[in-house]
């Protein structure tokens, strides 16, 4: 099993969700986060007081998928989340030791 962590542009969330649904990935956890990579922030001015805003709003998706489907899911994510501009985000992949469905003790890929 692999855990995929994708940090994407907030306005791409709906596209990504639809695309994942299209290939049968239903389970995910989504959080609103702030951060930046190479994308520069922006300037805000309040009554002449300037602030450089570096941490920009992003959405983080987390999902665990069977290892066999990893490349397919990554391809789907990249296609749906890409605009081609700096700030599109990143995908990180981790190994997962175990998964447990709390409702009925299912283990491993059955629990996904």
């Amino acid at each position, binding site marked *: 099993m692999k855990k995929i962590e994708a940090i994407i542009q907030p306005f791409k969330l709906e596209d990504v969700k639809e695309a994942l649904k299209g290939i049968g990935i239903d389970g995910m956890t989504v959080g609103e986060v702030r951060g930046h990579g190479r994308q520069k922030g922006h300037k*805000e*001015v*309040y*009554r*002449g*007081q300037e*602030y450089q*805003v570096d941490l920009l709003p992003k959405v983080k998706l987390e999902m665990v998928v069977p290892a066999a489907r990893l490349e397919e899911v990554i391809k789907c994510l990249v296609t749906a989340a890409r605009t081609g501009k700096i700030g599109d985000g990143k995908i990180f992949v981790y190994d997962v030791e175990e998964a447990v469905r709390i409702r009925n003790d299912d283990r491993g890929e059955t629990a996904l």
Partner: protein
Amino acid sequence: MNSRLEAVEAAAKSAQSAGDNAWMLVSAALVLMMTGPGLALFYGGLVRRKNVLGTMMQSFVLMALVTVLWAIVGYSLAFGEGSFFVGDLRYLFLNGVGAAPNADYAATIPQQTFMVYQLMFAIITPALISGAFAERMKFSAMLLFTTLWSLLVYFPMAHMVWGKGGLLNAFLGGKIACFDFAGGTVVHITSGVSALVCALYLGKRRGYPTEPIKPHSLVLSFIGACLLWVGWFGFNAGSALAASSLATSAFVATHFGAAAAALGWILAEWIKNGKPSVLGGISGCVAGLVAITPASGFVKPFPALLIGFTAGIVCYLMVGFVKHKFGYDDSLDAFGVHGAGGTLGALMTGLFATNLVNDVLKDASGRPAPLGLVDGNSGQILNQLIGCAIAWVLAIVGTLVILKICDAVLGVRVDPEQEVDGLDLSLHGEEAYNLEA
């Protein structure tokens, strides 16, 4: 025949009284609306999320506290016929303030209407100061400060300018005729200058100006500013104390001043920063409303536009440059807008006041006296300057003394830990936005 004439006269008088009283009661309600929710929203939106309730409370509690002070002694100290500097105690506990008009102030409305209308000014003035000590003053110290400030600064200043026999009262036996229709000196200079003293005395908020301290909701501020704009019609046009053509003239001047100032600030900001901001627009309209306040019952519509436009630019420079240059943390720009705008408006009143608008003041031969420079009265600008100077000095000295007292008795500033946690939680035990609740 005679009795019929008398009956007609009485009916006409009663009709005028009814009309005037209706307008004055509406005006009183409009001015209260400026404090709550107007100013509370305007200031509440400008602070960080953790301080919005504390900030709103500083406005709201004054609606209660100053009312009690006013009933006990405030109205008498402001409008009792006393010395040049303060009223006497004839209206203590509102003794004798009832349905009968007080002809010195407003001959066609119950004195009780006049009393409650003026109360609303006494409420908003100290509420304006809270913009300078936002996000860091103890609630207990704020209550003590405001009580003493009303007694030592506001009531005397209101008496000097508007009370019978007051030093600066142009219409009721003053020594130096200073024109202040609705409170340029009494309300805006006293509050704005006191605000600067508070900002300097309390010191900067933690993290200012290196950490971002951004307004948490300009939407709230926007609603608040628009309520202020509307409420200001009660403030200025109501100051005619009758539903008269003078009230109309003041209404128009007020609106024109706000409009031109909003454009002035937006324009200045657009040129300087490349972007016209909403905060700039609403700050500009408030600056214009402040500046037109003393002039509103004395100037024609085009000078009102000019006063507003100038105020929009000057106040923008005050908060955008002067504040940063000197480094004081006038958190919500009470001084930059009310102190500077009030002074500017009071001085420009000396230029543009004209008896074509306000002919109450008569010369020796009974003709309307020349008012400002446009009427050929070049000396008026000096009188306006003296009025401003008295308001500045009273505000500086009074506020400094009162702050020292409050600091000695209670301490004026919250603990660093409380400041980090925010006033809402540390002082009031609640949070503004429990979105997960």
